[in-house]
């Protein structure tokens, strides 16, 4: 499975309060959350993002609260993949559980620029910056994690497994 899109680039320690501020947590509806995604760090994100785009950030992405609303907001906004130097552990777990693709790759995180066109292959872990021509290698996910993401999250994956 591979994805391709335009990059939205952010820095280190992007926290869950800026990904989706608590004032919007009175509803867990993905469309409501997506409409406010990143608004405290990048007010124009929602109007600029299109399906398939890729988010690239520095270290400790998703730090702070355990709100699963954060990866849901990003996924529903159309982002197909988040690449970061590292992820905060609860966000990491939540992202997989809701089926948001993530990759840890310090080299890609450092080199890729805002607005670049990037493609990434989940099977090989290869990330290619089409704009600059550079390629990077992330450690690919094991098979079962890839299946969770393809299924759309842990619940759908568990259902598919029990139906099989």
């Amino acid at each position, binding site marked *: 499975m591979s994805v391709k899109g335009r990059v939205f680039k952010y820095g280190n*320690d992007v926290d869950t309060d*800026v990904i989706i501020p608590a004032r919007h947590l009175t509803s*867990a509806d993905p469309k409501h959350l997506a409409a406010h995604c990143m608004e405290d760090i990048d007010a124009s994100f929602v109007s600029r993002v299109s399906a398939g785009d890729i988010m690239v950030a520095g270290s*400790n992405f998703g730090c702070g609260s*355990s709100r*699963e609303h954060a990866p849901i907001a990003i996924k529903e906004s159309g982002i197909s993949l988040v690449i970061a130097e*590292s992820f905060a552990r*609860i966000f990491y777990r939540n992202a997989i559980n*809701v089926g948001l693709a993530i990759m840890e790759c310090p080299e890609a995180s450092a080199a890729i620029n805002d607005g670049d066109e990037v493609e990434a292959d989940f099977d090989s872990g290869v990330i290619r910056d089409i704009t600059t021509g550079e390629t990077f290698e992330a450690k690919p996910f094991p098979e079962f994690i890839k299946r969770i993401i393809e299924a759309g999250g842990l619940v759908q994956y568990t259902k598919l497994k029990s139906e099989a």
Partner: protein
Amino acid sequence: MGMTMTQKILADHAGLKEVRAGDLIEARLDKVLGNDVTTPPAINVFKNMGADDVFDKDRVIMVPDHFTPNKDIKSAELCKCMRCFAKEHDITNYFELGQKGMGIEHVIIPDNGLILPGDAIIGADSHTCTYGALGAFATGVGSTDLACAMVSGSTWFKVPDGIKVVLKGIPGPYVTGKDIILHLIGMIGVDGALYKSLEFTGDGVASISMDQRLTISNMAIECGAKNGIFPVDEVTLNYISVTNPSRFSKGEYKTYEADEDAYESTIEIDLAEVPLTVALPHLPSNTRAAKDVKDMKIDQVVIGSCTNGREEDIKTAAELFKGKKVADGVRCIVIPGSQRVYRKALDEGWLAVFDDAGCVISTPTCGPCLGGHMGILAEGERCVSTTNRNFVGRMGHVKSEVILSGVPVAVASAVVGRVATPDEM
């Protein structure tokens, strides 16, 4: 290489003799919990999975605390969803507003005797790590993990490496657990313990009260840690002998000791050297000695939260506020963390002290800490707060600021009208 306290608890809960950092294990859980923000999505997942019932109605804990008393119709619907589920499934530990034992989850759960040394707990709230203070393994997860654990009573973990934090000596005047943990986060950064355990040890531990240990473990997440755990000692045993005398007397708890060679790294902190500490906007790691930032004017002070809303915190605030007044132009909001602490403050006359000083007193709620309600900041406003996060927009407007501190600095700041230390009052 030996095992850390955390690794030993996880091994026992996975039915394994030994685990190593990086191992993926499936562990049984003693308690699983959620709040009014995270439980309703978990209930959706629960229903979506076609689950019939929870694994054990005594081991699932539900606490309405984030947007309570309901701040608007949507939050009322969230609470109603959780309340109905709790009733339908006969959840023993659902804590309704006004009941004895109700309040902020991480204040009431240890206080109500629901955590014992050696337990393994997950909660759909990042500050679930608080319970490490009791020598238990506790960590935060999201709503999907909560839903699955509500059904199965177990979850998977990647076994973390451990950082040994050696606390030495005795803290100086007014220096609290909050100063110690802010100081540590300032040293290692907001991802300094990412995916790892913080394990506190050293001769300084004995002098730190349980309420302060709970504050320290509470903020382990703010440097990325999976959990922050204290050894079990006389302070722990005294605490559980009061909070759960029945299980304490039957010895229904387990103590673990780390092996000497178990740790990936070691950090030493001389408690006498820890200053009264604040974290400036917009990261908990942006720490300074409070005495070095005294030119910062403030509009609001919040005293409370799962970090600093315990009995010792509210008592300290009352002792410092006695005979003093909140400065003109400053609003001070005091939020006892539980109904029990609130009642204690009423019986001891602390509420009268706060009222005389010009503070507003709130029922227990997470409220302003996460920018929910009960003290939201306007554009350009600045707040000294005993809460746990000072991210952009955390307590209100995206251009407002939160400065984190312990209770003594918060009280002094309210009285002086800028960041201040108790010796200035």
